[in-house]
């Protein structure tokens, strides 16, 4: 499988041993996550393997309850797997403590959320410079970097605006600037266009595509939208806590469609 490998290094060694191979940014091996709900132990992720390389533009699709969010939380270092190996940009992150996870999240991951999640009381610049401040960068330098990043995403004219003074598309641009300001290894976007109208969604998607294309930024998009997924270089599907290859998934969907006279395809694809 080109996108999936079980040969993940055990510790924090660099994945990329071959000079011609692209650098591995993210490597998941047999990731499992279960939750104890009352007396029942429910396994949400049932052995996920995934390899993401530098410059990848990857979409993760799957129906509701398939484990998308759990996987995103683990990849985004907001949650820890119950078992399995996770190597992020050469660092083994399974079993790190909360402080180490926070620090790694600050440096390696840029989040873009469907609901933007900007701090409502802070201006665009203040929102964008926040990851740098938590990294210990001096305020002046952080503000300068934030202004440059906002300029890059086309928000140079709205530096002092607060979120309630911005449109949905502008808010998402600010969120993208905030995600990128710390030069992360991975941009993790959870339904980045989900709350936008079609035109604005197109603009935001173009921005992400441009960043991936021009700056070789590794982008992982979690989406329900087939059109968004189609614009990505790679599509990965998650179903019942396991990842399946794009082609395998489409075959499964196709046979189900045949069995049920075409009723299941939309349900599987759109969740």
């Amino acid at each position, binding site marked *: 499988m080109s996108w999936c490998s079980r040969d993940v290094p055990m510790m924090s060694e660099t994945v990329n041993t071959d000079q011609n191979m692209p650098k591995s940014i993210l490597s998941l091996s047999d990731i499992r996550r279960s939750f104890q709900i009352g007396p029942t132990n429910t396994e949400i992720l049932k052995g996920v393997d995934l390899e993401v390389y530098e410059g990848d533009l990857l979409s993760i699709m799957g129906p509701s309850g398939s484990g998308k969010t759990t996987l995103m939380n683990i990849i985004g270092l907001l949650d820890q797997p119950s078992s399995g190996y996770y190597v992020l940009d050469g660092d083994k992150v399974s079993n790190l403590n*909360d402080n180490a996870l*926070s620090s790694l999240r*600050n*440096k390696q991951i840029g989040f873009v959320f469907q609901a933007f*999640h900007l701090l409502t009381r802070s201006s665009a610049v203040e929102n964008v410079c926040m990851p740098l*401040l*938590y990294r*210990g960068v001096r305020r002046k330098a952080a503000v300068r970097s934030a202004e440059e990043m906002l300029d890059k995403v086309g928000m140079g004219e709205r530096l002092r605006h607060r979120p309630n003074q911005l449109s949905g598309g502008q808010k998402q641009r600010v969120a993208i600037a905030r995600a990128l300001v710390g030069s992360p290894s991975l941009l993790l976007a959870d339904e980045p266009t989900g709350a936008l109208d079609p035109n604005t969604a197109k603009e935001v998607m173009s921005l992400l595509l441009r960043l991936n294309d021009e700056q070789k930024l590794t982008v992982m998009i979690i989406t329900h939208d087939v059109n968004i997924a189609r614009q990505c270089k790679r599509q990965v599907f998650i179903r019942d806590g396991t990842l399946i290859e794009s082609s395998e998934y489409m075959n499964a969907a196709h046979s189900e469609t045949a069995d049920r006279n075409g009723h299941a395809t939309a349900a599987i694809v759109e969740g």
Partner: protein
Amino acid sequence: MVGANAREAVDSMRKARLRTALGIIGIMVGISSVIAMVSVGEIAQEQARKQFEELGTDIVVIRKSFESAASVEIDLEDAIALDATVASIIEAAPRILGDGEFIHSGKTVGNGSVNGVTATFASVNQLIVQKGRFISDFDIGRYFCVIGADLASEIRNNGVVNPVGTTVEVGGRLFTIVGVLQGIEENYVLPVQIDANRSIFIPISTAQRVAWRPEIEVIIARSRTDIHHEKVAADITEYFRRRAPGLQLQIITAKELIARMESQMNIFSLLLGAVGSISLIVGGIGIMNIMLVSVAERRQEIAIRRALGAQRRDIQSQFLTESIILTMVGGIFGIALGLAVTWGICRYTNWDFMVSVTSIASGLGTAAIAGLFFGFQPAYQASRLDPIAGLQSE
């Protein structure tokens, strides 16, 4: 990060004005209570010290102790010879105390103490003669008296322009008034009360004859200021041990009293401070509530910050900064209110108002500590919030 936290805190306080105002009022009342209570305690202490100083810190009060044998009394001759024999004593003034009704020209002009005294009594107790003279050592056995200022005005009210030379009847005996005292402010901090304005003073030798209890009630003396009060007391004890074996004395020096009073006042101030602290605790609980509500309302913000890389201690310090700023602002207003209340109390009691630096410093310190103490739990709670749940909340 501290500056950013402070800015966030001020911004958050500005957004929730009513809640902030209520929190500030709570702390303000608490701190002002502490400031007012501690200041009043300190001012009262200062006032008492001043009263002592006006009378002199060299005063010594000697009494027969209750533990003493009933048959042994202070001898008048011993009392009179005290200042001449004991080097640490400058002057000694024994007193025999009685009381009675004072009748002048057939009318009752007052009720009060009849003090059998020697000539030194006036100088030891800083009594000033306004008219005539004080009791003299040559008035042995004479029925002369010196009257206090209030008594003199009562007599004048009866139409007598100059009471000196007239007679006053006490306990069926007539005493010729030889002098009138100037009015004097009573000093309540001394362990012996004179009540000079409403009393009469007669020769001690006469009192020995006419008083119901002819024993010496007290010796009021002045000691040398360069000698330690414990040495003075030891000298007096030694003097009476030789002169009157078996006589047990109670010797109270002003300095000892001041020290005792100061320690009592410190306890008093502490008690007042403790009373004030109760309101501070109530105010602090208010702050804690406000901060808990703030944490609950800002779950999503906390989660976003955590997602952006904030560590638990960053979140904790952000909320702690907020509660400290809240209590410090309350503290500053509280200091102003506390000082105003103290000023009002001083005006009402005629005490000298003074700004106690200690109370201001302790006010600000207490505010900061209250902020830390009452803000800790909400801040800790904030730092422990699950970022995943926070991001999913609306």
